[in-house]
């Protein structure tokens, strides 16, 4: 039991957060709860704290909408939160699509999809930044929030809270795409919201740190990581994972049997040295 908890503690916490939030949102619509009302695009916490998706607000701005004070406060709340704890924490701890793409990645590992498709990925992970730019350009040209009208994230989340319609098709498309077309295809390559939060999280404080001296080069962390380019330092150098593309999902920490990865607060001054010393003193 202890090992089970040790090996899956963050995964269990993440699923609890993801499902718990869904239940809270769902309860607001179904049973009139007032803890968390709305959906991931914009919501209100305890009837008091407004929260809004900064990427949606950015598209509104590009589309030429007048941004209300409520919206700007909501954007500030969410923006500051992710600036501190890491933008893509949204991706692995909140976003409901994460459960679908994780399921696809898990199935891939089980059935050995990589062995027929090879390890080399045929698409660039920078596609998301292109899609991000494109969404803003289209928002500007067409005068609507371009990504919000196709976003499977809000489609699925809104669907679970307010009624799904054909939203299940979007879920299935993403699952099949990730399973058969491209490994970590949606979350790791295409999703502009992930791209946006990668940029937001560039300077965040909570980081995974690698301790090279503990590493046995088993590469389990790279196997399980959905953004494995961020783990370039594994077995080479004791460095924090500084890329904004890391989702802080902490799977690498769990699968590591050698205590070579752990969460830590980012230290800005004299990054490398102090980082190492802190870890050793613990």
């Amino acid at each position: 039991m202890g090992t089970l908890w040790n090996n899956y503690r963050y995964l269990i916490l993440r699923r609890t957060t993801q499902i718990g939030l869904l239940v809270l949102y769902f309860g607001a619509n179904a049973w009139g709860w007032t803890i968390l009302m709305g959906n991931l695009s914009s919501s209100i916490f305890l009837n008091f704290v407004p929260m809004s998706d900064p990427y949606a607000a950015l598209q509104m701005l590009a589309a030429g909408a007048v941004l209300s004070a409520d919206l700007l406060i909501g954007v500030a709340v969410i923006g500051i939160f992710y600036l501190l704890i890491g933008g893509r924490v949204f991706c692995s701890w909140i976003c409901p699509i994460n459960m679908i793409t994780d399921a696809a990645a898990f199935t891939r590992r089980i059935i050995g999809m990589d062995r027929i498709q090879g390890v080399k990925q045929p698409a660039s992970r920078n596609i998301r930044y292109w899609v991000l730019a494109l969404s803003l350009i289209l928002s500007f040209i067409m005068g609507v929030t371009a990504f919000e009208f196709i976003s499977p994230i809000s489609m699925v989340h809104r669907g679970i809270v307010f009624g799904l319609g054909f939203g299940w098709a979007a879920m299935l498309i993403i699952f099949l795409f990730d399973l058969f077309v491209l490994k970590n295809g949606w979350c790791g390559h295409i999703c502009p919201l992930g791209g946006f939060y990668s940029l937001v999280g560039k300077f965040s404080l909570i980081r995974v740190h690698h301790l090279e001296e503990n590493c046995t080069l088993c590469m389990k962390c790279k196997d399980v990581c959905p953004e494995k380019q961020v783990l370039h330092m594994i077995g080479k150098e004791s460095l924090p994972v500084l890329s904004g593309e890391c989702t802080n999902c902490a799977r690498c920490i769990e699968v590591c049997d050698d205590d070579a990865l752990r969460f830590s607060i980012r230290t800005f001054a004299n990054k490398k040295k102090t980082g190492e010393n802190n870890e050793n003193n613990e």
Partner: protein
Amino acid sequence: MSENRPEVKKKIKKQPLSDRRKFILNMARGVGLATMGGFVWSAYIDEVTASELLLRPPGAIKEEDFLKTCIKCGLCVLACPYDTLLLAKPGDHKPLGTPYFVPRDIPCYMCPDIPCVPVCPTGALDEASVTTDGELDINVADMGLAVVDDESCIAFWGIQCDACYRACPLMGKAITIEYEKNTRTGKHAFMKPIVHSDACTGCGLCERACVTEKAAIFILPRETAMGRAGDYYIKGWDKEDEKRLKNAKEIKTVTERSKKSAIDSLNDGLGDLY
């Protein structure tokens, strides 16, 4: 020299692309794919946002602005005590995620405190548009306009029915009953429901109440339901209406013949006409 040539050629062929060439090709590929994706994406958006027959919650701003301002959070839907408002799902053929209502199923019951409007975080539902003298006033809301199909409305047949009139929350203002002699029987009256566009809020209680199989009175977005006379036709007997003439712009139709004066071409003998 000449023997070396084929070798040199081979070398060039096998040489890896220069970084600059690679960069240019990669950029070209990115731009090309982005253009392709952009067109597909925009075509899709153009389709899904082209829904005109959509009834929005009270206080909704102009549809064009609504589409860019609504963040699709559903707080208005949560606030509605009658489950009137819905969020468009995939498959509803409406702009995805935006709120609307179907009056024949559940109309807007016109709550005096309009709970759906103040909760809107983005101002897509505008409090000012449903406020009179600093207080929320649902009676000035404009969700749409009731339209009567007088061919299927049984009151127009001469059968007595005033379901819509009775259901209207602005009874006697938004819908009035007009009496008219029924010449078919010679001794009865038609009691025809007439909608007044200046008072109707488009709440849809009439559509909900209509007794015919498919409602003979129904709500359409005002823009769809109404025509426009324009500035060239005025009520000459109405001093207020006559003022609109100021807005009218002159239209000049220039054709080959009217280069000279039109009068000339008529009076110049028949030469110009044949």
